């Protein structure tokens, strides 16, 4: 095989690109993975900002990573370790807390402390959400069927889907349809009375999503944050030791162990097409690489509007790609701290200080935060998902020092339609720092460095269009056989030999590795090679 010619080229070394490339390489293919940045990982990345200080710059916690893949690719052997952090807590301005303890009884008692009815309602809520988790989990490592197709594979998958559906029983089928289309506020309203409890639980329904808790469709987003697990504890979240870059690092190590080749600083600007099939890619620096199989880990919009010559694609298809909903709504601050901030409401020895922290009062507060986004600015009272991973993971900072990860919802990609200015960014930063400062008196004095991540920065650095963390909104019209577009949900692009493998495909965002693995299964099928991608474990 001549130099620069490969069996397959994967564009983008995000965790899904890595997963995909690893399976292709494992199948014996000669695989090249091209990455625009000098580092790999996409949004699953850990970067040292100064000696001894490391941030998970983008994604920061881990739950969705498919355990089947973790095991199958022996990521533990390649150095990946995921440590649960055990719950989270909401602090109120009145100095109270709502603890979401990892221990079910404690959590229930905490809910009951705020509202006796809600304590018991929590049990019912957990059961009903768990029913939904059990329904969706077997679908994650499968290729969605095309409901308009009569091919045997599609019919087989449709039958599988309808069997899973029937297994739920009539009542739960109805609950499922409702769940997938309701607002998180309405859904929680069917269980809970306490506004604080509803506000706290609503967070999982809006993270990364350009919708408020009153918007229909947000109940499903909640499920997307509940359906993962840490060692079988469904809904639990943990840290990747060494930051989320450790996931990418382990995958890269696996990829290389199968002979894969990674080239960084390789900014792919064009997918080369000849007639109806792809022939390779061209980079900004003029390098060209040849392959009959090209896989894009970039989001669908970026893939089809930037990597292709529009003349190579059907106009309707280009329109679909342009209209793909991929709205940036989240930002992040990474904060280096000279010591541990105190949260008086929480106390020094509450175990929840290791977990995620939120500052909330009511559902309306979250909805108003969304209104700010709609009106073209960052939320003045944002929803924060704050963690101090260095309390759990000693590898992130020098001893006694800390790194705080603050995820912020809602943050628009432009300010009133105009690009972010330094002044805007400073204003955004101060909004968040002030908010934290109101709950932690010594916090501001400990701050030694702040990395501000607004959607435009995430877009420029990671490549996610509009800075959308899920590579595309998780809404009904972009789910399952509609993700990314109807008719293109089976990882294949409009040209022969072209595939998508990013979170913009089923089953969507999060550090899950499922899209990458599913795409590999389809590619191996098309190349008539034995499938190496594991089946999802039977979830009972």
């Amino acid at each position, binding site marked *: 095989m001549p130099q620069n010619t490969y069996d397959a080229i994967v564009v983008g070394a995000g965790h899904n690109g890595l997963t995909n490339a690893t399976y292709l390489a494992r199948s014996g293919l000669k695989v090249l993975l091209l990455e625009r940045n000098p580092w790999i990982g996409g949004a699953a990345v850990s970067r040292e900002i100064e000696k001894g200080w490391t941030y998970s710059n983008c994604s920061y916690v881990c739950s969705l990573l498919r355990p089947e893949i973790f095991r199958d690719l022996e990521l533990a052997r390649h150095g990946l370790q995921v440590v649960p952090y055990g719950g989270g807590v909401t602090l109120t301005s009145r100095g109270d807390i709502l603890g979401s303890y990892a221990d079910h009884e404690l959590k229930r008692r905490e809910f009951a402390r705020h509202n006796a009815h809600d304590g018991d309602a929590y049990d019912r809520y957990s059961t009903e959400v768990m029913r939904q988790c059990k329904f969706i989990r077997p679908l994650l490592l499968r290729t969605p069927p095309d*409901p*308009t197709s009569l091919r045997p594979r599609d019919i087989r998958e449709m039958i599988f889907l309808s069997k899973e559906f*029937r297994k739920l*029983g*009539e*009542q739960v*089928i*109805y609950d499922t*349809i*409702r769940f997938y*289309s*309701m607002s998180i506020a*309405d859904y929680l*309203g*069917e269980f809970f009375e306490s506004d604080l409890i509803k506000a706290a639980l609503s967070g999982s329904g809006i993270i990364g999503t350009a*919708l408020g808790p*009153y*918007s*229909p*469709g947000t109940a499903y987003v909640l499920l997307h944050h509940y359906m993962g697990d840490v060692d079988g504890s469904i809904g639990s979240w943990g840290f990747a030791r060494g930051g989320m870059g450790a996931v990418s690092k382990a995958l890269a190590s696996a990829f290389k162990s199968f002979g894969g080749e990674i080239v960084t600083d390789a900014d792919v600007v064009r997918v080369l097409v000849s007639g109806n099939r792809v022939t390779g890619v061209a980079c900004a620096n003029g390098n060209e690489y040849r392959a009959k199989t090209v896989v894009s880990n970039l989001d669908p919009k970026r893939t089809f509007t930037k990597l292709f010559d529009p003349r190579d694609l059907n106009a309707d298809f280009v*329109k679909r790609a*342009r*209209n793909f*909903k991929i709205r940036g709504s989240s930002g992040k601050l990474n904060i280096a701290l000279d010591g541990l901030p105190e949260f008086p409401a929480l106390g020094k020895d509450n175990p929840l200080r290791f977990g995620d922290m939120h500052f909330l009062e009511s559902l*309306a507060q979250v*909805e*108003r935060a969304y*209104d700010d986004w*709609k009106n073209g600015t960052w939320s003045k009272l944002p929803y924060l998902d704050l963690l101090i991973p260095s309390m759990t993971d000693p590898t992130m900072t020098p001893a006694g020092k800390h790194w705080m990860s603050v995820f912020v919802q809602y943050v628009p990609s432009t300010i009133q339609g105009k690009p972010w200015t330094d002044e805007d960014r400073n204003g955004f930063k101060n909004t968040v720092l002030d908010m934290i400062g109101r709950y932690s008196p010594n916090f501001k004095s400990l701050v030694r460095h702040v990395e501000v991540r607004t959607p435009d920065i995430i877009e420029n650095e990671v490549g996610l269009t509009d800075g959308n963390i899920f590579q595309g909104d998780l*809404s*009904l*019209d972009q789910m399952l*056989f*509609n993700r990314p577009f*109807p*008719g293109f949900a089976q990882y294949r692009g409009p040209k022969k030999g072209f595939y998508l493998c990013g979170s913009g495909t089923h089953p969507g965002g999060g550090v899950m590795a499922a899209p990458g693995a599913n795409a590999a299964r389809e590619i191996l099928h098309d190349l008539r090679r034995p499938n190496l991608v594991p089946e999802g474990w039977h979830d009972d």
Partner: protein
Amino acid sequence: MTDAKHVIVIGAGHNGLACAAYLAKAGRRVTVLEAAGQVGGAAVTREFAPGFRVSACAHFSYLLDARIAKELELARHGLATARADLRTVSLQPADEHLVLNGGTVEAGRVNEADRAALAAHHAAMLKFARVLGRQHHRIPPRLLGGGRSNAIGAALLAWDIRRLGRDDMREFLRVAGINIFDIVEESFESPALKAALAFDAVLGTNLSPRANNSMLALLHRLSGQASGTAGGVSLPAGGMGAVSEAFAKAATAAGATLRLSAPVKQIALNGDRVAGVVLESGETLAADVVVSNADPKRTLLELLGARHLETGFVHRIRHFRTKGMAAKLHLALDSLPGFPRLPAALAGERLVIAPDLVYLEHAFDAAKYGETSPQPALEISIPTVHDRTLAPAGKHVLSAVVQYAPYVAEASTDAARAQLLENTLNVLESYAPGIRGKVLASQLLLPADLEREFRLTGGHWHHGELALDQMLMLRPVPGAAQYAMPVDGLYLCGAGTHPGGGVMGCAGRNAAQAVLRAERA
């Protein structure tokens, strides 16, 4: 006929009357009990100021089912149209007004690309709406169990989607669950056009244009037109009350007995079966079957009583979303208001004030927190342009749906009503300068008023929000979507059941089929 089954229909709304007519035609002894002194429920014409009459709740006819109109011979029973095929005029604050006639832009600053896109959009919407329209005459299937008729029902629904063809089916599955905002944003450039189309989708709902389900609400609105409602959006002669009068005549002609001012207090039971009803007056009426045109919550939680139902079912009914978000304004006007830049001939069309998407969104934002919209969006009808029977000579009536008006205690006070009236008149004044000076009398009905006046729990025009989770086999709630309630002999026939709100008559007809089918079983 004395040994025929006696059916009591609670409520002489158009669906109750339709149900009564079909059951009477099938030889059942039918008594319709209406609480008010006139028939019609929310499709009524009322005098709101001396000499001024108006369609007091619904003010356009756009969903009336052609098949039912024919089967019940509504025309023979006096139904006539004052004006059919109304255009939509979206009033612009400073620009040329936008005049839409279906998929055609007749006037307005809209570029060629948008005009072409509108034609395509309209055709696609009609095609998708037809899928819903085909379900209007079917009792929704249960998804599991329920035997052969259910399996056939489910297969028919699947087939209706499939027969759209591959591309349209894909597009239907994509858009059915989402919001109008994204659809108009991806298809059009003109802010006025986007807003006019978006307003159609959120009219009468508790949704903002950005909210998922707004596409579905739009398809529902179009489903009548798409499946052959004659006349598109039209004004019945004599107001919406005339539609109800025709239904009433059809019912009585078929042999049903109609009793007005006979409010029902309670649905009586004998063991697991309905035994009849008890009126407010204390009078007891025995019946083999009771069909309620009242909304599901009123029927089940008040007239029947939660204790006669099971906990899970009651919980579902209680969470059937019935909070109305639309108020109704009636103005008695000294003369026809003048809208600058609008030809006088168009004053009687369907006028809309929703100049852009942000306007609509902001109107909703206030209301979602229980506040009155500072600048409400309006759907306006001046029926007296076409129908002189409604006002004294030379005078006019303006009827408007005002959005949004939340159904919460804080926004249901006299002060809140006065505030919304003021906000609405301010908006009107800016589009029709001088209109305030022409107002002889005014009436504003908040959702709480609609609840009281028309016995609609929550004041929702459609008896309950029309959304993915509250339609077809989920309307009003799973387990009650086939019209029969979990009490033997009790049925629902109102807008709270499939296919939902709008003056259609289908729920009444389907409920009658369900009653007859159960008798045969």
